[in-house]
């Protein structure tokens, strides 16, 4: 193999993790079955809101196979689950943080709220025994809609949160915005509902908790995107255990999409209980439980206004959003509709003044938290629906109104706190229009009309902010955690390299992408690189995977550790080659003396470091093992344009996506095959939101009406056309990989593209406004209402 073959950067290297998944050798949490393990089952509230008068567990405790039954009162000394981000309101007060008990105490606040745990020899016995628990409920009125929850007279969910309000928070210069609106030639106004979604990773949440008397320690296997964060929150804030005594392992995880970031009640109760029953305890959610109890996404109600001058130039934006938190604050719930939302409202545009006010509200529903995109899809939907509507109202073409307002000078300071380092928005728009064959659209529309179909085209020029950072600024904004990542590069004596990363892969292919980075940087074959993740017992520390941060933050931490390895290797090489350290160059896997042909291979240096017979022991320690913590100086800003073309059957209301094109700028790309896969998946989730997915609670009873795959519409293969995807590259300026992140782009860009296309198609029949999802029922109703 020649040296140049060692660099696989930019190559579609086939995934190294695939073999185990394709042969059934993956190890997911439910596949872990310690000897002598028992099973947990959680009794969940059938009521959306009720006081618990009494829980009688005596019969359940006596049931066959039952080892223990625990209620909230039994968990003495166990604190509530914490929220990781403190939002301070416009009134200067901290957000309201009602207690979120591991098992409900005193009252239950949503259907699915866990109030007792049964531990039994078999899962069936635990489930059967749970039915024998007698709970005396005083059922209270419930409220599931965030706007209704703020109205006077609404049921009060928490004593400590009057009016169900968690906080009202604002960002931007209100006076400047008001002044700009006063002189606007045109104002576009929209009332928007961003529909509530249920994440639905195909692997349900699961946990296996084991206590060992030998070392008074616990091991938790859990479906987590960030095992160290899980351990930190669980030990330091909830259970009061030393971190040294708890090992959290997130093995193969079957999709996350945000829903597996959070510390949930179930695994917390199981770790606590594992010592009390002194047997390993296993729990795997049934899908019905996932629907009820996984943190949901979105659920915003927004009024938004865009002020324009006579030429269609944006002057100002004004946004008011009511955001549901659900019954309790999930781990990062509070930052989603604020820090991750209002800051994105500039989009790709030079809008000089933006003001956003957000009221977060408790409702009798499952908690709401980050779901693929987290705040950024909601912001993009507001911006791109406004832009579309403004273009229609002012008679400016959709590409043209965007071009008139694109940011073209970088770095660019937005009026909503972010500093965009780089971008190339025209290039993505051009290419998206090219692959979408926009020129041919009028002919296709005319042809559709001949067939009695309504054809429409919609644009979405999105931006996202990934790799949330830096820690000190996030801390000033209320983050209760750091936002760095950790990489450890352990060079083995024979030259192989084991890399420990704090990022977690649950479908993203890090074992391949990260190995490409390491192999290329060190000039060694990729087969000699092993990537380890997901285990607090092996990886030094880590913040995990969320917000499309793994390559730009986690990958950079690895690069920084590699830099340290190379620096040390140069010292060793200088000694071996009897040259000055400054004269040593590292290239293509060799440490050489500049201007000579004298060199040592990476493997020779590694061996020397571990067998230091001829070694500068007075200057350098033996061994070759380096760790780096990398805290980014800024977010990264992926951006692009998505174009959707739909054909609607006016007789049935069915929306057929006939063409979906995306051109994205993710900065430098390590593995284009994996990036394309991430785009595909994101688009499918974004299209799912816009076309069919919608979580529905009954307004009176608070019952979840979309609690199974028979009621909640999951996208299937037949719902999609082949996606056309392309990329443009402006490298990120502040990380050594030049990478920006690609995991969420599709989910952010797709919903407004699709809905703008639907609006474009329906304009012909007089429909002016439709909320997501554009189901046949809604579309048909809109068409028929417009007729009358």
């Amino acid at each position, binding site marked *: 193999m020649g040296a140049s073959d060692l660099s696989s950067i930019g190559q579609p290297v086939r995934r190294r993790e695939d073999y185990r998944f*394709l042969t059934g050798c993956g190890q997911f949490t439910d596949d872990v079955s310690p000897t002598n393990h028992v099973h947990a089952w959680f009794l969940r509230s059938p009521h959306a809101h009720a006081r618990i008068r009494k829980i009688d567990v005596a019969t359940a405790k006596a049931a066959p196979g039952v080892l223990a039954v625990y209620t909230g009162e039994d968990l003495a000394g166990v604190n509530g689950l914490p929220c990781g981000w403190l939002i301070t309101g416009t009134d200067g007060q901290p957000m309201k943080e009602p207690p979120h008990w591991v098992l409900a105490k005193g009252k239950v606040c949503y259907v699915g709220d866990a109030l007792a745990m049964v531990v039994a020899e078999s899962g069936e016995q635990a489930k059967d025994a749970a039915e024998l628990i007698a709970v005396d409920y005083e059922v209270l009125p419930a409220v599931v809609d965030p706007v209704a929850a703020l109205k006077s007279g609404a049921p009060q969910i928490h004593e400590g949160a009057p009016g169900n309000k968690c906080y009202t928070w604002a960002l931007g210069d209100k006076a400047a915005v008001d002044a700009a609106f006063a002189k606007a030639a045109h104002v576009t106004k929209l009332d928007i509902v961003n529909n509530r979604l249920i994440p639905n990773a195909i*692997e349900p949440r699961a946990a296996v908790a084991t206590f060992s008397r030998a070392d008074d320690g616990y091991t938790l296997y859990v479906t987590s995107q960030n095992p160290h964060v899980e351990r930190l929150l669980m030990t330091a804030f909830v259970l009061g255990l030393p971190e040294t005594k708890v090992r959290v392992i997130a093995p193969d995880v079957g999709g996350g999409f945000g829903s597996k970031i959070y510390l949930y009640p179930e695994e917390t109760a199981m770790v606590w209980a594992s010592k009390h029953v002194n047997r390993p305890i296993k729990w795997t959610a049934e899908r019905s439980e996932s629907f009820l109890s996984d943190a949901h996404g979105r659920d915003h109600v927004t009024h938004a206004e865009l002020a324009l001058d006579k030429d269609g130039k944006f002057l100002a934006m004004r946004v008011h959003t009511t955001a549901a938190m659900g019954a309790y604050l999930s781990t990062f719930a509070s930052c989603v509709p604020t820090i991750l939302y209002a800051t994105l409202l500039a989009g790709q545009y030079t809008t000089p003044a933006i003001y956003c006010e957000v009221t977060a509200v408790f409702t009798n529903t499952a908690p709401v938290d980050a779901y693929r995109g987290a705040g950024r899809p909601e912001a993009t939907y507001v911006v791109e629906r406004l832009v579309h509507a403004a273009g229609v109202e002012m008679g400016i073409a959709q590409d043209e109104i965007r071009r008139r307002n694109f940011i073209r000078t970088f770095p660019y300071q937005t009026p909503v706190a972010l500093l965009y380092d780089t971008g190339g928005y025209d290039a993505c728009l051009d290419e998206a229009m090219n692959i979408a064959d926009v020129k041919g659209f009028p002919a296709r529309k005319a042809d559709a009309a001949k067939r009695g179909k309504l054809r429409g085209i919609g644009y979405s020029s999105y931006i996202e902010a990934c790799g949330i950072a830096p820690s000190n600024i996030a801390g000033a904004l209320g983050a209760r955690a750091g936002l760095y990542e950790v990489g450890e590069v352990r060079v083995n004596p024979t030259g192989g390299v084991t890399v420990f990363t704090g990022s977690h892969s649950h479908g993203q292919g890090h074992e391949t992408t990260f190995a490409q980075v390491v192999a290329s940087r060190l000039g060694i074959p990729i087969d000699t690189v092993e990537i380890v993740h997901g285990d607090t017992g092996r990886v030094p520390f880590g913040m995990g995977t969320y917000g499309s941060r793994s390559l730009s933050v986690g990958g950079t931490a690895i690069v920084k550790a590699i830099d340290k390895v190379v620096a040390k290797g140069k010292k060793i090489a200088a000694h071996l080659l009897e040259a000055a350290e400054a004269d040593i160059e590292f290239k293509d896997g060799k440490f050489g003396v500049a201007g000579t042909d004298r060199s040592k291979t990476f493997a020779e240096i590694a061996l020397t470091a571990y067998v230091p017979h001829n070694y500068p022991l007075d200057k350098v320690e033996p061994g070759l093992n380096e760790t780096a913590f990398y805290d980014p100086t800024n977010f990264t800003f992926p951006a692009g344009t998505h174009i959707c073309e739909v054909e609607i059957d006016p007789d049935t209301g069915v929306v057929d996506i006939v063409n979906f094109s995306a051109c994205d700028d993710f900065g430098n790309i390590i593995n284009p095959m994996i990036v394309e896969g991430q785009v595909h998946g994101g688009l499918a*989730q974004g299209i799912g939101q816009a076309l069919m997915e919608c979580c529905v609670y009954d307004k009176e009873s608070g019952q979840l009406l979309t609690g199974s795959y028979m009621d909640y519409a999951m996208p299937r293969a037949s719902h999609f056309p082949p996606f056309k995807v392309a990329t443009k590259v402006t490298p990120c300026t502040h990380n050594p990989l030049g990478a920006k992140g690609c995991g969420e782009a599709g989910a952010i860009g797709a919903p407004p593209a699709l809905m703008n296309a639907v609006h474009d198609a329906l304009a012909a029949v007089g429909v002016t406004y439709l909320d997501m999802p554009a189901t046949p029922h809604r579309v048909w109703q809109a068409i028929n209402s417009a007729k009358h």
Partner: protein
Amino acid sequence: MPVSLSLTVNGKPTSADVDARTLLVEFIRNNLALTGTHVGCDTGQCGACTVLIDGNAVKSCTILAAQANGAQITTIEGLAEANGELHPMQAAFKDCHGLQCGFCTPGMVLSALDLVKRYPDADEAKIREQLEGNICRCTGYQNIVKAIAQGAAAMRR
């Protein structure tokens, strides 16, 4: 009440006494420790538990183990060659990046084999239609569809 069961799984005959209510997927995962067959839902929708029974794709969460008495069952563990070489359909999934988290993958691959058996020349639209019973949340199905077409072509050779 226990029932006696004799069946062949991945070419190996096996017998057991199981609780009558034991689902086939529970038997496969818990009794045989073949954990490649996954459970993703409780309503027979997601298809993660798909296995081949006498060559036909069946969701193993929808039948009792007792109903499979005497059957020939193939799970994902039974597809590759003894030397570890992947079946052409497995190889196509890898080559086309037809999987991400890997959880729905075993069911997808086994459904694909059933699909190819019934429609050896399935075009893209037919493949999409026939994947109705398998949900994937990661890939948007794009590369799964591509993989099945490529796998089918490889199997014809």
